[in-house]
């Protein structure tokens, strides 16, 4: 996901300011050997701070957790936090700083696709290791990156299939609304290919993009209403990102679009984003993820207890990218223990095939394409801002980072 904002340069100057904010709690009594260093590359200021600060906290929580258990291979783990300030070129500089100055063994970071694309050459050049925890548009594979979020076939396509099913309301027309950048455009391109394969033609697809942070949705919502009044059941697929979601959902509520008439499924709206909205008018609208906070079961309870204990707030919510960070971190500790080394090449080999009973309640496995197998869950917004799971895949789905619905991928290995 790659939002852009006209005011980024303004925050660039804040650069390292936030970095000093957080240093991990140290615990004594570890075996010999220098500490293992974990880099944290998440924006703590600027437009993406809203989403990324929780991921920084998740990594710090996991560092505490592993140190409380006696570290990895008996060595203490130490976090190095830097602040790339929602500034994409600064991401590359900070990645270089982590790898060359701090000599970190592994890095957890990035949210937007553009930030990932910006650090990718750095990690490849210096042979680092990055864990990327957010669902994304696919069409990428690097030996230096492990993708612990969903690929399109683990989120977007099953969600649209659900909308077209009996339980989802048998939608025959789809409005694709998104923020104007690479993630929504690529996802919608894949979805268009998929819809065509299901017999839904261009006349029954509406596609609209808005600038990042768009706040006036009156016209677009009114047009969706009109589009929906042409005799076929309609659904909205939203790849709207970040700040624009709150005004969008407010407008849906105010114009009286009910989920039973025009359901809206979102790919970038989780528990954290709903925290800023009165969700009562939105009950029944949907989100597709691989994890929801409302999942029952011991792995999630353990995760929730850890998080709310760490953040000292029993009301703080968890979300999908946080779960992906947690899963990635635990798999990395397992891989280091298995490889008995923190060298990138050794850990990489040990990562493939790592399994973990993740908080989503399914066993996830790291595949040779550096993506995870994950379950797909569809949740309905509840009046309390949580999601009620209405549909899920019976098993974890293997990631296809190269989508078969993009014609250029026909010759690629999958």
């Amino acid at each position, binding site marked *: 996901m790659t939002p852009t904002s006209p005011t980024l340069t303004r925050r660039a100057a804040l650069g390292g300011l936030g970095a000093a904010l957080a240093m991990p709690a140290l615990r004594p009594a570890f075996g010999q050997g220098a500490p293992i260093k974990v880099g944290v590359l998440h924006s703590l200021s600027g437009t993406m701070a*809203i989403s990324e600060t929780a991921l920084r906290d998740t990594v710090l929580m996991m560092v505490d957790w592993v140190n409380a258990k006696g570290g990895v291979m008996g060595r203490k783990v130490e976090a190095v936090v830097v602040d790339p300030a929602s500034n994409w070129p600064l991401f590359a500089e900070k990645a270089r700083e982590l790898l060359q100055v701090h000599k970190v063994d592994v890095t957890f970071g990035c949210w937007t696709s553009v930030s990932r694309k910006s650090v990718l050459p750095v990690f490849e050049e210096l042979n680092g290791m990055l864990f990327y925890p957010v669902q994304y548009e696919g069409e990428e594979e690097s030996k230096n990156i492990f993708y612990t979020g969903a690929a399109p076939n683990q989120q977007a396509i099953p969600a649209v299939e659900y909308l077209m099913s009996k339980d989802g309301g048998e939608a025959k027309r789809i409005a694709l609304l998104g923020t104007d950048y690479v993630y929504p455009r690529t996802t919608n391109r894949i979805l268009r290919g998929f819809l065509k394969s299901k017999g839904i033609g261009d006349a029954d697809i509406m596609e609209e993009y808005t600038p990042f942070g768009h*706040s006036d949705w009156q016209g677009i919502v009114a047009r969706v209403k*009109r589009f929906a009044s042409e005799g076929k059941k309609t659904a909205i697929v939203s790849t709207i990102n970040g700040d624009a979601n709150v005004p969008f959902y407010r407008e849906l509520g105010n114009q009286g679009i009910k989920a039973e008439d025009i359901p809206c499924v979102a790919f970038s709206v989780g528990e954290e984003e709903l925290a*800023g909205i009165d969700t009562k008018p939105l009950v029944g609208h949907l989100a597709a993820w691989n994890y929801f906070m409302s999942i029952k079961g011991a792995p999630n309870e353990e995760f929730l207890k850890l998080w709310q204990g760490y953040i000292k707030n029993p009301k703080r919510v968890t979300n999908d990218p946080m779960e992906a960070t947690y899963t990635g971190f635990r798999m990395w500790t397992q891989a280091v223990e298995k490889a008995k080394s923190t060298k990138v090449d050794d850990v990489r080999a040990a990562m493939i095939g790592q399994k973990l009973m993740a908080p989503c309640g399914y066993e996830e496995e790291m595949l040779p394409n550096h993506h995870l197998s994950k379950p797909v869950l569809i949740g309905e917004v509840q009046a309390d801002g949580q999601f009620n799971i*209405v549909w899920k895949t019976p098993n974890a789905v293997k990631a296809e980072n190269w989508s078969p619905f993009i014609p250029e991928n026909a010759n690629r290995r999958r």
Partner: protein
Amino acid sequence: MKNLSLALGLLLWLALPARAQDAFTAALPGLAGGFGDIAASVEQLGALGDPRGLPVLRALQAGQLQKTADGRLLLPGNTDAATGQPADGAGAEAVRLNNRVRQALRGALGRLQLVSPDAAERGAAAEAIFRSRSAEDVPILQAAIAREPDAGVKARMVLALAAAQLVAPNEEAKRDAIARLGAAGTVEARALLIEARAANPSLVTAIDVSIASIERSLSIRRAAETLFQGLSLGSVLLLAALGLAVTFGVMGVINMAHGEFVMLGAYATFVVQEACRGIPWLAPWSLPLSVPAAFLVAAAAGAVLERGLIRHLYGRPLETLLMTFGVGMILQQGVRTIFGAQNREVTSPAWMQGTLMLPGGIAVTQNRLWIIVFGIAVLLLVIAAIRFTRFGLEMRAVVQNRRIAATMGIRTGRVDALTFAFGSGIAGMAGVALSQIDNVSPNLGTGYIIDSFMVVVFGGVGSLAGTLVGALTLGVVNKVLEPYAGAVLAKVFVLVAIMLFIQRRPRGLFALKGRAAES
């Protein structure tokens, strides 16, 4: 043989009431099953017309119907839905809904509520049947229409009847229905007609006539709605730019932290709302109360900024620009540290939610309507303050000629501080309005700073009338262009148009004349 079948028929007829009762209890267990079972039994309950179904369905809709581990269903207050007896509710959990169930529920409740003593409920029921419509609804609706006393509710029932007749087999009734739906002229009626068009080849011409008549009334309505959307966007721009029209337009200070004052106003709204939450009679009034609070908070911040920093930089626009830029970042990060990076929820009071239907079927959203009213009120307030108060007089005097004003005994430094505080306070009031449509987050203001400068420069620096006309023009042009060009390109077009306009008229729409403008 004949007698036997006759007797059997008689027996069946006698057993009918009992069977209906059985059917009610037989339909219930499905509610404890999967979503498909729930939807099916909801439909059954609606079709039965048994009044005992009503409390069950209502509880289901409200999320208060509970199921126990052994499949019994409990109404609120732990009464068994099947027997009506008190029951043990230990370990019961709520029956969940999905959109398919909600759809079925709407239709079923509609049928059962058609006999409700409450007119509003009957109206809602007619609306629900209009959406769920089936051929079986025709006799039920005809009976309901015959005994309906309320004309408004009756009209809605007649429309629902038309919708149901459209899917019933009677050709003659269908023609009637098509004409009535055409006369209704709503988007929903058009949707039904388009759907029916494919299924009824013999009626295509009649349907097309009706659709065309709906299209005509819709196009007028659409134009009115676009105009409203443009005015609404314009009023938001006006609110955001008014404070700047004072600080930049009157004082000439390029204040890049203007957006952050708007943001402070929005956070003040949040704080007032939280403070009022504990006091039930005050809670609905938290939003009006926020207006003075937001004004004071932002004005105080503005006064501190002017006295502390800006006054040392008068006549040095570049340094002012950079310095206020920095102040803006500090304010943002400060708010992020205090309130967190997450959005804060400011709820809308009930009178600001939903859609208002104007005569002619024009739909306007309530919150937008109130923001237009608020924008006009703030504009009048600013004009009145400048025209009719002592402070306004001194302010105009200082702007026109600082040295003569000083010799007349006006403390110019104090007036500067008050003027800047006034402009900042107006920005704070804009924040109250924006908290109703946008995120209350530390980044709130950054989205409006460019637009605000654009409005002030386009309208003419120093002219409040220019700010008003500029804001409304930009809003309407943006909304008229949007359907053709898309939201992104519409913005680009507007920017290009303003660049060309400024080339021709560098002083904007309403240029100040006279000596003051030359300096």
